[in-house]
């Protein structure tokens, strides 16, 4: 499933965030953008990788998660076929920012079944921006980085004409359908784009031929974006996005999701004027609401039936932009404030007794206000220095008496306040014309999450413990170092990254043998606690090699290690992995072979109930053909994933649920009036 992606390798390119800016001649590797829409490519990318991107084809069947999974620094935690949680260089959940167009959004599930990525479809995305720890705090204090999904705008290319694309696909393993439609219409100063997506997946089959029960899902996604040009330089934009998922199986969890909905609304004011000192900026006000209902009614032999609804509401405002001080100095800035409300409860039913009700996320609110500033100096054509900083004031509190009564059992119910500081220094130096060194040193902080502070007997199906929050946990404080070398010749490029983070006050679950577990069959209770530190380090390598203008190979390696203060391994560390793509692309046609190799993972955390995971080797093949039909572009794509029908699971998969076996897919995309 994860490998279900065509040309993402050509998308998966190390592009600088700043690459589009004329004053930047050195690539900054701390941020990557995965482009998902063709239209903006030519306008925004001016690096040697432009050629690769320009012929990139993207696969609209692929979910955002599948695209992210191809990045060497991103690993995905699977709890089922849906709701796959991204991690950046081991950091996850509260340690990273997950944003949609710069907006904060919080999942409404206490079990992290709904990371923000599920509420977005590639069809309404312009790009996905991944920043690691060194720059990732610019959008919000974080120690692990940022994943920002930028929504696609309506375009003004064809006045008074409806343009768009229809996309349809089928996959054999899960007998899944994918249908999407995007329409665009522009009239003078107005432009509107609407998109709709429908996905239906049945249970997929693993490599052993067995049906993996509770791996089905069904969803729709709608978005409308309307923009109005105030003048040539600025416009107002209204984005409305609604995502509804239902009957979503979570094979690795004791229950599924009956309904998961997200409503996201934002109003933005954008300005672009290259003549001004602040040459682009945007201001946005937004609100979003996520509702999540778990469902155990389809599970056999459940000891007790329960309802588990959750809700998250976030509102915020921000202004961000880029400015140039002179030809050599550039700044980016952001000021933002946001407020997030969370509540989740659980009601258990047993005949002849009153319902058993409890708040699993006692009603709580986190308010945040912060500002960031980064400054880049191009010293000469070979040296660039960047300094970035951010400060946040964060306040978290319980908002109802009922919530306070719950948490009072474990102690502190007072308001928690924290002032978070983040700063980084990056230096990029070209040593020869072909070799570039990048190094960065940064310090960042993050507050505990609502789960870590207020979690009330949250069952973790991975280690089998009930987790209880601690209100006065200390914020995690991380010091990180990053070193990368980039070697480029002709159209080819090899990049090797080394990173190291030491996280003080690292938050883990510690067994509390005095408490009895709430969940029937649980192993016990763990309290979220600070340990003195944890160390996380790893290596990543990416290469793009053109064997001929029509023959390209892309390869990535990743290796991560994470240990606690007692030198014990932390759980969910991805093993050494390599993915390699060989792609042949004459005109109008492409064919590619992909290999995916993961080493076995034996450095495991027994404290978290982990077991070792075997190595695996996967082979995928894909072909595609583009042509014109009545002057309209049409794309036909097909492929076979997991050709050898390998029965395997990844180390980061909960419950050792096997992944998809051999899967054949067919996809058709039809552009009209373009």
């Amino acid at each position, binding site marked *: 499933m994860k490998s279900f992606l065509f040309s993402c390798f050509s998308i998966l390119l190390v592009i600088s965030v700043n690459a589009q800016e004329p004053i930047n001649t050195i690539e900054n590797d701390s941020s990557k953008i995965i482009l998902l829409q063709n239209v903006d490519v030519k306008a925004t990318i001016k690096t040697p990788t432009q050629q690769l991107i320009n012929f990139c084809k993207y696969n609209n069947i692929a979910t955002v998660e599948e695209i992210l999974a191809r990045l060497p620094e991103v690993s995905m935690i699977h709890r089922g076929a849906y709701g796959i949680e991204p991690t950046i260089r081991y950091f996850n959940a509260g340690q990273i920012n997950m944003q949609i167009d710069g907006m904060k959004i919080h999942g409404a599930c206490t079990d992290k079944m709904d990371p923000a990525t599920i509420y977005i479809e590639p069809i309404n995305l312009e790009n996905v921006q991944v920043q690691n720890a060194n720059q990732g705090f610019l959008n919000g204090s974080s120690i692990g980085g940022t994943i920002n999904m930028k929504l696609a705008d309506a375009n003004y290319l064809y006045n008074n004409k409806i343009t768009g694309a229809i996309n349809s696909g089928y996959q054999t393993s899960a007998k899944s359908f994918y249908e999407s439609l995007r329409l665009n219409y522009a009239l003078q100063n107005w432009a509107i784009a609407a998109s709709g997506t429908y996905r239906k997946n049945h249970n997929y089959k693993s490599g052993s031929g067995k049906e993996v029960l509770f791996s089905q899902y069904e969803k729709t996604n709608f978005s409308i974006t309307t923009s109005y040009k105030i003048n040539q330089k600025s416009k107002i934009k209204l984005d409305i996005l609604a995502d509804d998922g239902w009957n979503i199986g979570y094979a690795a969890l004791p229950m599924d999701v009956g309904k998961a909905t997200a409503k996201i609304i934002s109003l933005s*004011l954008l300005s672009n004027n290259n003549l001004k000192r602040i040459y682009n900026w945007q201001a946005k006000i937004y609100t979003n609401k996520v509702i999540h209902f778990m469902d155990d009614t389809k599970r056999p032999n459940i000891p007790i039936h329960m309802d588990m609804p959750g809700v998250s509401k976030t*509102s915020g405002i921000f*202004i961000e932009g880029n400015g140039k001080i002179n030809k050599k100095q550039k700044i980016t800035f952001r000021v933002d404030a946001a407020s997030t409300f969370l509540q989740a409860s659980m009601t*258990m039913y047993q005949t002849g*007794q009153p319902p058993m009700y409890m708040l699993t996320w006692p009603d709580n609110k986190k308010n945040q*206000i912060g500002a960031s500033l980064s400054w880049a100096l191009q010293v000469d054509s070979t040296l660039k220095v960047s300094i970035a900083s951010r400060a946040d004031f964060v306040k978290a509190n319980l908002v109802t008496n009922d919530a306070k*009564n719950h948490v009072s*059992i474990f102690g502190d119910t007072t308001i928690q306040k924290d002032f978070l500081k983040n700063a980084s220094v990056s230096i990029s130096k070209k040593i020869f014309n072909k070799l570039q060194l990048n190094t960065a040193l940064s310090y960042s902080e993050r507050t505990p999450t609502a789960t870590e502070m207020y979690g009330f007997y949250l069952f973790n199906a991975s280690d089998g413990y009930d987790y209880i929050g601690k209100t006065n946990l200390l914020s995690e404080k991380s010091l990180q170092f990053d070193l990368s070398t980039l070697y480029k010749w002709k159209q080819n490029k090899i990049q090797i990254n080394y990173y190291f983070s030491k996280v003080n006050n690292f938050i883990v679950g510690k067994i509390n043998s005095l*408490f*009895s577990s709430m969940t029937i069959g649980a192993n016990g209770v763990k309290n979220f606690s600070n340990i003195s530190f944890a160390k996380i380090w790893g290596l990543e390598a990416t290469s793009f090699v053109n064997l001929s203008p029509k023959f390209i190979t892309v390869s990535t390696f990743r290796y991560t290690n994470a240990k606690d203060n007692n030198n014990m391994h932390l759980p969910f560390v991805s093993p050494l992995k390599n993915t390699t793509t060989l792609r042949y692309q004459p005109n109008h046609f492409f064919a590619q072979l992909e290999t995916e190799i993961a080493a076995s993972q034996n450095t495991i955390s027994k404290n978290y109930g982990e077991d070792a995971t075997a190595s695996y080797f996967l082979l995928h093949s894909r072909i595609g053909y583009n042509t014109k039909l009545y002057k309209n572009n049409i794309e036909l794509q097909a492929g076979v994933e997991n050709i050898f029908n390998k029965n395997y699971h990844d180390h980061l998969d909960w419950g050792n649920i096997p992944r998809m076996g051999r899967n054949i897919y067919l996809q058709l995309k039809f552009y009209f009036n373009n």
Partner: protein
Amino acid sequence: MKKLIITLVLPIFLFALIITPSCKKNNGDEPIIVDDIDPTAGLTKQHEGYAIGAATKIAVYTKSATITTGYNKFYLSLTDSVTGKRVEDAHIMLMPMMDMGAMQHTSPTENPASEMAVNKLFPCAVVFMMPTSASGTWTVEYTVHNHVSNKEGKIKMLVNVIEPTISKQKMFTALHNGEKYLVSLIDPSTPKVGINDMEIAIFKRASMMSFPADSSLSVVLTPEMPSMGHGSPNNVNPAHVGKGHYKGKVNFTMTGMWKLNLDYKSGAAVADTTQFFDVQF
């Protein structure tokens, strides 16, 4: 441009001010003026009558609508039948009696602690060990010495005691001395998820006519949710605070049916390990 930036940044701070709840004064701290308030407001009048000789009317109030088996707090309102004025200085004694025809017995009683009224009423308590039934009826005799008129008299009133759906009154025979002990659950009276006050009262049966308060036992509290098989953390064992009352804390992690297991010890000797109260909410 600068002006534009300011006009855009300003709303962010304004927004932050809105989302940051201001330091509200807690209205609950304001003193309540009691003079004009009826002291019996919110209480239920169970019965009333005249204590012959004392020239005093007694009205008996309770917080609950009915009188049930277990610990019942009474609030006595006294009125001088000559002056019609409220009496706030009196000596009152209670004598409950179960009349079963062939035999009679009293039950644990807490007379008003002071001869001065508290908030114009005289709080006192009676533990009814069993409900009113065809085989026996409860009466409570009040002996009143009205200090205002310096007159003394008595009145006996019939009490209808109802057995609640979940019992709040238990009795056990101690293993270490063979004596009978009566235990009443007083709190939690309105249970909630969170920390709850826990209060029990223990009386020893010295004879059919004497039930003194007992302070000799130590109590271990273990809450349990039988249908789920789990307990709750950070409870505080009830400890003696005076007059046979033991106070502690009980924590409920969810609503539903809870069982409060109580083990009793006298020093190192085990008195009983079988007792429990059910709590449902």
